């Protein structure tokens, strides 16, 4: 058996730590998954569900309800039993206090009722048949009713004693710059965790975490650091490692309701004008993976990609400035006044802004490079680095010309497509402002939940991917990297390319639990 | 209570001038000090009136009221019989300035260091439209410089003040005052900052100007000997009051007011015995600060002849000779 003991040091970008252990008010992402666990966790990387507090769950025949069964003899860290009552109580709170409604299942009305079936069984009644609701339900963390009931206002309750269900619950100390939390004596998994404690250390930003990582002060980094090979790995090649699997897909969103982006040929020209490899290499420091898939998803969802799309639309993501020029010429975008910049077919000036958030330097760099590539084919584009507030508003309202933005990363690609296309999301999200929508697509998305057959599901996804490649409302750029550095001088058991047992995101509930429980002393 | 000069009428006469200053910037504590109290005097063309007195006795204040830098709190100044405010209402301050000019104490401070001598003298000529055209202007400036003995004038005109000695600067200041061809010149301690060897040169220059241009001079000084030397008449001030005035010789040779007597006794004289008995004046009291509500004679506390009434009421002016007045109970 792996040897026990040790304290894991994890950096957190924080101003200061306070005794605040409410998983639903968790700005620093240090509670979810570590002090509280969910019923189950969908491990996307492995394409499987990892059961946590639940022993299992089951849909009703008609998919109008789902019933979770808790493990036997679960207890809270203070020794009190963890029962279906606690789960029901949690969802009741979520109905009253909006922050607790993490995935919005209650607010949207999808879950109509939460019922305690037995001491260990809870049934969720659904408004309409849905085979995907467990993705959402798996995000909620049951709360100890006997503790929360003491709180005068659950919306601000801090759970100062850190009573929870996760692997670490015993507070060693909380200081503004550091806190240490140790093993839960009543943890449901035998022998776990192997480690004694986790130590969170507060940092200002990545530029400060970098030297700390290099100095070996940190075991588990989830931060962007420049030139990881030369700085981090070089500092201790034996023990310093990193693994940067693909994360969310980053696109250049184009507003198709305005000229020149209302013209598909123009959008296509923009796409082929970009050298994704170079952008990834220079602007994004080479860590992300260039995204050549025109279907709207990135490597993270590689399993769901419709490969056949590549034959027909693969050219769209191949760097080919000549083709771009040709496309533009054919569509009538020509430099009529001889200033080196193309004009619109009607002869008026062609120039647009690409919005980006000020301070997100890799994106600003990316956009700067995009403008350079566009310049090469005679298109004038400018970087417009704005405050988050401005960016947020104009993307949601579709009040932009072009903008760089991410895409939703969740349990399943359908959620991503919903964010792109579903008309209910227009004005609500940053991804739906491009102006390409259709009733057929809405239907596809809405009906997905009621599909039970895997092939049918994939078919829906294929259709959506084809739609994306055809319309090209956004130009795929690259899949972000998952920043993950680990130090093996003391602890082993990290996920890596050889053993990719989970997506290595520290701040993601479930992923962190899985990794933490894997780690043990060398 | 005027100083009469039967021959002609005064060109400027001040009647009962009073000037109050508010002291202290804060709103909470404000005191008013009376820098001038019921001061009257006349200036005559071609004559000088010297005003002597210790520091802070209000000499400059009276000159500044005449030159309109300060406004009198009460009392009236007339110019050729016409009240000053009327005059200003007609011709503006500028018109007034063309008649009354001032020469200041400090030749280093009264010329703007950034302007050439030419500019300093040309300005009053331009302001008051004394000449037309650049050539005439230059000619006039040169002429003025020659008048005050600054030769070679053309070279001097192109210099900056720092290139001149103190005596030369004071001459420039005089030339500047002359430029507007005033009837009255107020000279506020014009030689006190000058070297001894050149003081007399300036005094003599002013004396000549007074005689040749028939200008009325007001000569402020604390040197009673030069007052007698330069001015036909002398007035002695003490704490905002004019205590004795009249013909210079009368005042200096036959002082009547105890303060004048003290002042004259204090003037050093070569060969005089080394100890003079001044003990009667000593350590009696400090010089008071005069306030509007103060009463009596300002010299009462220090006066060896003080009587009870001295501290209750200001004595009236007494004429003790044809041109000799004093404000003291001893002579009432």
């Amino acid at each position: 058996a792996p040897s026990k003991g040790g304290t894991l040091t994890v950096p957190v970008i924080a101003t200061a730590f306070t005794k605040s252990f409410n998983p639903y008010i968790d700005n620093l992402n240090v509670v979810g998954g570590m002090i509280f666990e969910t019923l189950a966790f969908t491990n996307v990387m492995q394409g499987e569900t990892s059961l946590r507090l639940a022993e299992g769950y089951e849909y009703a025949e008609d998919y109008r309800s789902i019933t979770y069964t808790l493990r036997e003899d679960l207890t809270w860290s203070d020794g009190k039993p963890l029962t279906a009552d606690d789960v029901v109580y949690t969802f009741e709170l979520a109905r009253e206090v909006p922050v607790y409604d993490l995935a919005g299942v209650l607010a949207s009305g999808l879950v109509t009722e939460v019922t305690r079936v037995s001491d260990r069984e809870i049934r969720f009644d659904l408004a309409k048949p849905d085979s995907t609701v467990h993705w959402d339900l798996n995000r909620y963390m049951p709360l100890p009713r006997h503790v929360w009931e003491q709180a005068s206002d659950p919306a601000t309750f801090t759970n100062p004693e850190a009573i929870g269900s996760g692997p670490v619950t015993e507070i060693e100390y909380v200081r503004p710059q550091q806190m240490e939390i140790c093993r839960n004596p009543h943890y449901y998994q035998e022998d776990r965790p192997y480690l004694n404690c986790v130590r969170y250390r507060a940092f200002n930003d990545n530029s400060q975490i970098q030297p700390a990582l290099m100095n070996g002060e940190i075991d588990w980094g989830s931060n962007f650091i420049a030139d990881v090979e030369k700085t981090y790995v070089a500092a201790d090649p034996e023990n310093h490692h990193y693994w940067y699997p693909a994360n969310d897909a980053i696109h250049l969103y184009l507003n198709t309701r305005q000229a020149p982006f209302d013209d598909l040929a123009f959008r296509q020209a923009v796409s082929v004008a970009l050298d994704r490899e170079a952008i990834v290499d220079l602007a994004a420091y080479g860590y992300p993976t260039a995204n050549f898939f025109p279907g709207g998803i990135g490597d993270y969802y590689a399993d769901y990609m419709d490969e056949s799309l590549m034959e027909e639309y693969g050219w769209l993501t191949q760097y080919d400035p000549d083709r771009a020029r040709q496309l533009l010429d054919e569509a009538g975008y020509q430099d009529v006044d001889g200033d080196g910049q193309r004009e619109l077919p009607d002869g008026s000036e062609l120039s647009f802004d690409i919005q980006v958030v000020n301070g997100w330097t890799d994106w600003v760099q990316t956009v700067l490079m995009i403008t350079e590539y566009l310049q090469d084919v005679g298109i004038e584009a400018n970087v417009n680095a704005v405050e988050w507030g401005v960016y947020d508003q104009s993307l949601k309202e579709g009040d932009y010309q072009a903008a760089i933005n991410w895409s939703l990363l969740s349990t399943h690609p359908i959620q991503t497509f919903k964010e792109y296309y579903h008309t209910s999301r227009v004005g609500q999200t940053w991804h739906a402002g491009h102006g390409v929508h259709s009733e057929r697509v809405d239907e596809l998305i809405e009906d997905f939940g009621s599909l039970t057959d895997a092939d049918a599901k994939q078919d829906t996804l294929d259709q959506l991917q084809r739609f994306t490649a055809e319309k090209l409302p956004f130009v795929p750029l690259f899949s972000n990297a998952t920043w993950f550095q680990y130090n093996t001088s003391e602890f082993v058991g990290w996920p890596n390319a050889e053993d990719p047992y989970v997506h290595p995101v520290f701040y993601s509930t479930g992923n962190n639990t899985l990794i933490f429980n894997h780690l043990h002393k060398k | 209570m005027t100083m009469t000069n039967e021959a002609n009428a005064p060109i400027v006469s001040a009647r009962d001038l009073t000037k109050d200053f508010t002291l202290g910037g804060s709103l909470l504590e404000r005191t008013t000090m009376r820098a001038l109290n019921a001061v009257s005097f006349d200036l005559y063309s071609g004559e000088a009136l010297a005003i002597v007195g210790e520091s802070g006795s209000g000499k400059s204040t009276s000159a500044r009221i005449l030159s309109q830098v300060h406004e009198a709190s009460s009392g009236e100044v007339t110019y050729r019989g016409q009240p000053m405010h009327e005059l200003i209402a007609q011709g503006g301050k500028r018109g007034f300035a063309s008649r009354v000019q001032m020469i200041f104490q400090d030749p280093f401070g009264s010329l703007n260091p950034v302007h050439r001598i030419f500019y300093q003298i040309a300005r009053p000529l331009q302001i008051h439209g004394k000449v037309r055209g650049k050539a005439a202007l230059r000619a006039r400036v040169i002429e003025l410089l020659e008048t005050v003995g600054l030769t070679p004038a053309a070279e001097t005109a192109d210099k900056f003040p720092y290139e001149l000695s103190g005596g030369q600067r004071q001459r420039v200041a005089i030339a500047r005052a002359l430029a507007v061809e005033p009837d009255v010149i107020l000279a506020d301690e014009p030689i006190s900052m000058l070297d001894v060897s050149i003081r007399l040169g300036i005094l003599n220059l002013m004396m000549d100007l007074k005689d040749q241009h028939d200008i009325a001079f007001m000569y402020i000084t604390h040197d009673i000997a030069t007052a007698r030397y330069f001015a036909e008449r002398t007035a002695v001030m003490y704490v905002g009051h004019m205590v004795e005035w009249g013909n210079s010789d009368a005042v200096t040779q036959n002082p009547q007011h105890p303060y004048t007597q003290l002042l004259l006794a204090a003037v050093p004289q070569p060969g005089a015995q080394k100890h003079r008995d001044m003990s009667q004046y000593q350590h009696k009291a400090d010089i008071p600060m005069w306030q509007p509500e103060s009463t009596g004679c300002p010299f009462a506390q220090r006066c060896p002849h003080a009587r009870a009434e001295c501290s209750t009421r200001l004595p009236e002016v007494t004429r003790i000779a044809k041109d000799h007045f004093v404000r003291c109970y001893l002579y009432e």
Partner: protein
Amino acid sequence: MRYITSRFLFYFVAFLIAISFNFLLPRIMPGDPVDALFAGSAGQLDPSQMDAIRAMYGFSEGPLWSQYLQYVKSVFTGDLGPSVLMYPTDVTTVLGFTFPWTLFLIGLGVTTAIILGLILGTIAAYKRGNWFASLFPPMAAVLSSMPAVVTALLVFYLFGLKLQWFPMSYAADPSLAPAWTAEYLGSVARHAVLPLLVIVLVSLAQWVMTMRNAMINVLGEDIITMAEAKGLSQSRIMLRYASRNAVLPVVTSVAMGLGFAVAGQIFIEIVFNYPGVGNTLLKAINARDYPLVQALLLLIVAFVLIGNFIADLTYLWLDPRLRK
């Protein structure tokens, strides 16, 4: 006494102006704290959740003037509500654990810089014409005209990262429990070295130059010649006669000095991740944490005002001419 009262009144009014400015700040500026919270979490939050949070923070409603009175009251009662950035921690609590560090660092730094500046300035004035006096002031001026952030980065890089002589971040080793033990205090001291070095480098010249200039002026005065003529010892002349008088203009320049020190402090705290007010301020700004930004700004203003008030008192103590 009158002088003290009038100065105090002045600072009080200045503080009220600061409060009003603070009050208006979030109301006239674009941006919303909850949006920024989202920006901070880089896409981790669901939009529906954000609405919930927004409702939870609830900017107080009602006419502006009643909001204003409410605000003034909350400032003077110290009840500034919860911080957005560190929700649900109270703003006052945040100030509680950040301000002492800033006070410590800036107090020590400014004191060191002033004392060093006075000494070096005095020497530079006394030894006019020798190589130290002619080279040092311009050198110090050049050093101090480097932006604090540049100096801080270079010091950080050289002594922290490359040479590893001193720790690079924090106010003390975070693994040590704060206590009055030699170990903890030693750690605090070691962590303070580099930030202090930067503060001193950045602000030294100002004090050197003011002191030197004031000293040169004083040395030219008759009081010094008189003291020398009296046959007093050199040290007595220096300390009792020259420095005492020369220090007066230095005290007057505290207003500017403190302003600069605070400015430098912000960069220094950011570079060295010192858990003080400046560091927190930037984070609060980025998070649009208005309650915290306002409180920090107010705290900084109050600090500078109090520093100035103390300077005024010092001046009063040093210069009997003002005592009335």
